[in-house]
Structures are given as C-alpha cells and as structure tokens.
C-alpha cells in the first residue's frame, strides 16, 4: 500500500505550526480516518471534531487542500494528488503559500472565518449565534391534525431542510470573511426555508423579513455561489438569498 503525507496546521494559543505525518493509505480511507490514525497512533494531542463519519452530522468541516469540506466525506485517494498551489475556486486561504510548496500530500487546516480554539477545532458558537438570530423555528403548538402540504412544497423545502449546519458554506464565504456581523449563507438559507414553510405564521414571516433586510442580511451576499459550490448536502443558499431579496419591500 502506498503512503501519503498528511500536513496539519496546528495551533495552541498564539503558536501556529505545521506538522507532517506519513500515513499508510488503505482502500476507501477518508481524511477523517487519516486524522484518527494520527490521533490514536502518533500524536494523541491532535484535536478535531467528529461524530457520525457518514456526512450527516456536520461535525468535521475543515479546510482540506484549501477547500472547505467534511473530512469524513473526503476520500484520501481523491485529494492526495490534488495540486493546490492556487487556492481552488479562489476560496479564501488562511496560510501563507510557502507551506504547500513542492508538496505531494494533503493539507488540512481549520475552517476559515471562525476563530481557532485549538488545532482543527474552531469556535462554532459564533456560527450558531448567527443562525439562531433569525429565530429558526415554527411558532406553533401541537394541534390535533397534521398540516396538509403539497408534495411539491415538501420537495422545495427539502432542498433547504437538508442543511446539516456544518458551516462549510461559512468557511467559503467572502462576505463572512469581511464582515463578522454578516448572517452568512447557512442562516439565510434557513431564513428562506422558514419564509417558504406554509406552517410559519404571517407575523413571524414579516418579522424575519425585516430582520434580514439589511447589509448584514440578504444584501450582504456577493452572489458568487461559493457556498453552493462547497455544500456537501447540495443546499443552495445563494438561490435562497436571491429569492428572499425578491420578497423585500
């Protein structure tokens, strides 16, 4: 079996460095498995978030070869020979380019646009606060009957309810990089989902529209579709944002 080099951007308080590990590649190995190999066999102090390992929980978003992705869904075989001298799709780079010079392997860094707590763990609270600020819930108490809903509406909603809040979109977003107040693609995609949902109350829909009708809301988006490009669940925040803009008075 062949070996590959795994380069991990480490951080502990003010100190930032790159560690290089040689890892044996197994068939079907994911980047998450490679990280576990390091944590369990080589350096127990390495930290990263994980849970499902099946691309449904959204814990392990990180920058892999300069692209925000879920480590569990990224096959080593797909990325080990990627050339990343240029940031792919122009996605924001957070490290000087010298560390990837003449390399052949995989570079793993923390998700951009959120502050690093240690190693690959970023402060997700900021991201959650942005999402929660739009009040993402249905204000309803249980009734005796289920709401009737057209199957076509269910399908429209599904494009947005598929979001797993992994924040890859946030890590790819140039507007989020510039402006920490910007609600960001995940929150705005959710705003569209609740705007669309027939179970939302008119009053809540209005309040939501007012809240997002600002430069930190729907008007803050650069409409460059980077969030759409990186979403592991094929959610389309930009399309949602454009539709919401159309609803603004």
């Amino acid at each position, binding site marked *: 079996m062949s070996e590959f080099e795994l380069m991990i951007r480490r951080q502990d308080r003010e100190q930032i460095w790159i560690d290089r590990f040689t890892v044996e590649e197994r068939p079907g190995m994911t980047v998450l498995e490679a990280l576990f190999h390091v944590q369990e066999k080589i350096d127990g102090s390495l930290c990263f978030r994980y849970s499902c390992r099946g691309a449904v929980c959204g814990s392990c978003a990180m920058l892999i070869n300069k692209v925000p992705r879920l480590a569990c869904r990224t096959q080593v075989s797909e990325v080990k020979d990627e050339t990343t001298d240029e940031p792919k799709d122009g996605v924001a780079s957070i490290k000087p380019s010298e560390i990837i010079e003449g390399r052949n392997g995989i570079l793993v860094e923390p998700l951009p646009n959120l502050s690093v707590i240690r190693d690959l763990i970023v402060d997700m609270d900021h991201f959650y606060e942005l999402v929660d600020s739009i009040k993402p819930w249905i204000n309803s108490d249980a009734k005796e009957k*289920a709401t009737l809903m057209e199957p076509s509406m269910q399908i429209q909603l599904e494009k947005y309810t598929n979001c797993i809040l992994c924040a890859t979109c946030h890590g790819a977003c140039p507007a989020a990089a510039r402006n920490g107040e910007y609600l960001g693609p995940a929150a705005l995609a959710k705003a569209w989902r609740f705007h669309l949902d027939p179970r939302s109350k008119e009053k809540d829909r209005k309040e939501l529209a007012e809240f997002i009708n600002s430069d930190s809301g729907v008007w803050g988006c650069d409409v460059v579709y980077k969030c759409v490009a990186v979403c592991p669940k094929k959610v389309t925040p930009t399309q949602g944002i454009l539709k919401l803009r159309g609803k603004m008075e």
Partner: protein
Amino acid sequence: MIDHDIIVIGGGLAGLRAALEADKKGVDVAIISKVHPIRSHSGAAQGGINASLGLDDSWGSHALDTVKGSDYLADQDTVEILCREAPERVIEMENWGTNFSRTEDGNIAQRPFGGAGFPRTCYAGDRTGHNLLHTLYEQVLRSGIKVYSEWLVTKLIVDKEKCVGFLAMNTIDSKLESFRAKATILATGGYGRIYQRSTNAIINRGSGIGLAYTAGVPLQDMEFVQFHPTTLLGTNILITEGARGEGGYLYNKNHERFMINYAANAMELAPRDIVARAIQTEIDEGRAFPGGYVQLDITHLGNDTINERLPGIRQISIDFAGVDPVKEPIPVQPGQHYSMGGVSSNKDGETPVSGLYAVGECACISVHGANRLGGNSLLDTVVFGKRAGAAASDYIVSQEAISDDILSKAIADENEMIEALMGESGENFAEIREELQAVMQNNVGVFRTREKLDLAFERIKELKKRADNIKVMSKTNVFNFELLNALELKAMLELAQVITLGALVREESRGAHFRTDFTERNDEEWLKHTLAYYTEEGPRLAYKDVTITQFQPKRREY
C-alpha cells in the same frame, strides 16, 4: 457548582423531547451533551417513525407487530403506550415543522417496513432522523432551554438511593464541575462502537449507560444486540430498511433472492434479526461475494423513485463505496446497529434510583424486547422522552434542596482519579479499544456459542485489567481527546462484559440473541428479562418477569 431542577444528559431526540416537556411545565431544565445537540446520532436515522395514522390501521395492530417482532420479550403494557401515543407524537413533530414526505393528497406519507402488517412508517425521504432532530432542536431554541455543549459527564452522584446530580468535564478546559439536580434524565444513546462493525456514530460508546451501571442501577436485557442486515461494505454506514420497504431485493453471488429460504412470505421485509441471520448464513456458507457481502439491488426502482425517496443512501453509496445504486447493486453486510437493552426503566422513564430517569436507546423500558422493529426507535424517543420529562417535573415538586457536601467530596475524588490517569508510560486506550472491538465482533455477534462467549468473557476480563494501567500522555487541557477516550473506554469494557455474560447464561435463541448450541426459544425457562448489577468482581445477574397483557407468546413465522 451548577444548579438546575432537572438536567437531561444527552441532546439527541429523547433528551431534547424530555427537556421540552419539562420546560413546558415551567421547570428549570437544562441539557448537557458531549457534542452539540445537532451532532447527535439520532440525526443518522434514515427510514422513519412508526404511527398508525392510516384509516384501516390501528394502534392494536401496531402493538401486535411490535410484540411479535420482539419475540414476546417486550413488556406489553409499555408497548401499548408506545403505539397508542404514536400518532399524537408524530403529528406534533409535523406541527413543529418536520418536513415529512407527503402523499398526493398532502398527508404524511407512510412506507412498509420489516415485520409490519401495514405501511405505517412515516418518513422524510431517507433523512427522517435528521429532520426530526433539527425540528426538536429548533423548538429547544425557541423555548430558550440552557444547553451545555461539549461536556462529558463522568459520574452520577447517588446518595441514599437518590440521584442528586453528577460530575462533568468541560472539554474546552478539561475542568470538572459539579451539577446539582433534583432529577437527572439519561438520554445518552447506545454503545455500538464496542463492536468493530457498527452503523453507529463514532461517539456512541455507551458511557451514559455505564454511568448508571456503576452507580448501582441495573441494566436490562443487554444481551439483545440488534445487527442491521444492510450496512455498507467497508464503512458499515447504515443503508436503510426503507430501501427494501420501497421494493429492494437481496441477492447472493449466484443471483438468488435467498430470502425465499428464510422467510418465504415476508421475504426481504422480514424483521431485522431474521434478515441479518439469513445474510450471515449466506456469508458463512460461501454463497456471498468475496469479502463477505451480499447485494442490495434497487436499480429496478428507477432514477425518480430513488432520487425522491432514497436520495441519502444513493449519496452515501456513491461517496463511501463508489457505487451508484441507480446503476448497480449496493454491497451490504450485517453490522451492529441498536441496543434493545439498556438502563432498566419504566413507562415514565423512572429507574430504580429515585431522581434518575432513562429514555431512548440508553434505556430498556422494554418496548423492543429481543428484537426491535424498524421505525420504532425514533418513536420510542419522542413518546418516552415526553413522558419522562413530565414525570420528572412532577417528581421534583416534592423534593427539597440538596446539600453541597456530597458533591464537593465527589469532585475531589474524581479529580484524584483523573490525576492518576495522567502519565508518561502505560497502556494506550486505542489498543485496548481495538482489541475489545475485535473480541465482540468475532465472538458476540449474530451467531453465538458457549465456546466463543466463554472466550470473550475471559478476554474482556484481561482487557479490564490492562485498562487499569492506561496512561494519558497528552498534557493539553483544551479538547484532550486522549483523556476523554480513556475515560469512556471504562464504560465500554463494563458493557461488553454485561452483554457477554447475559448471552452466555441465556441458553436459548430469542430475537437477536441466537445460540447455535440452543437454537430454539425456550419460554418455560427464559421468558424473562435479564438484570445485571455492577459489582467489583463483575456483573451479578438477576431476572424478572415479562408483562404480558393481550398477546400470548406464539411461534414467530414470517
């Protein structure tokens, strides 16, 4: 010290539903979880949630299917509650915003599932758990319930047969904190990762069940471990029963639909224990593909049906096995999936220790008996989560404030234990864990014999001894996963021992527990629940009766 009237440990479906109910009753309730709630394993559930919504369906018919599926080990009074309350809970989830799939006339769509006499499994594509989890979390946000995310609970504090709180480590700085609560609700999920091949999230290590066990609460029916028939070759990620519910076929290497030899009527939709044994038999007898798998074929369902109803498993197959199910069959094999057993608790989640409740997969209520039907676990979480939240809210009214002393002393002891775990050389947690997983996979799996169970029991004892010498070498205080893993491994070893001993002593075959040396169900001697009590020397077993109301045990045929 942190204080709340009720604290729920675990932020999956059962925990969130329990907390919501307590909040609705005006109680000061909080949630503590080792991951952010939306990262919980509930989100990985695919196929659906059962409720007799159909006009010609009934809760009684749901109950009969559940009891028969359980191989008559389920308690029928709690099964009645599960099935009676199902429609109300599912409708409530819909009202709160769950994006259920719909029929043409706009109702919640339902699909057939294994062991069910009626298509009563409500679903949101094949991402039902994800949709339910996000909906409940949204309602928790709406209610403003305090959530302590990324804290690992290390010890329950039981004083005079009463649970008065617990200790937990904040993973961001590794500091221990004591939590005082008049009632504690365990909703910590399963232990799948004590097996090598499991559909479970990596975080499912059973440490919550271990907390109750070492605090003196009995574990019930732990030998009943569900092996899901269809997990993806390689990663063992779940491929939903919904794939067969929608019409998928299972083939061996000779392209035979082999289920005809095991369940001629139900075929692929026989209950999970039966299909898992069928596949394992095909593998063991050389009729499977090299590498030990069979094929799950859904190609005949066509592009549209697959994209509409099974988009998640299509993506999983492409991402993790390089197979597109629209074009070719999915390679599948059985893998550990669910624990029918758990912390012994009743219809309101009450355990034998006052002030301690247990719900969801970590509990044994017992509605699943010896084999759970697909679609009943999501239902279990919301039905009994709500009931436990309500019961705990009533319970705390009569409870007086708890003194600090016992919690302060406990924290000093626990800090000492953790201090002793740190060191430069000793056993490594990962090696012991890997060996444990291999022992369980090879000896306590789909087919069991005395010989293998004996061997496993001895091996686990050795591993426990070695685990006493585990040392954590990482010194960091910020997300010290080596420390967290070492702490959690202790529970994994305890639970493995309980499962193995229960399986060794139970000389019969019932539901998911199959002994090749005792192939028949034996109601005369074994129609009873196993209870396991913690002792320093290992588990002490006791037994209790099964509650039978309307369905007398019969031979199970499908």
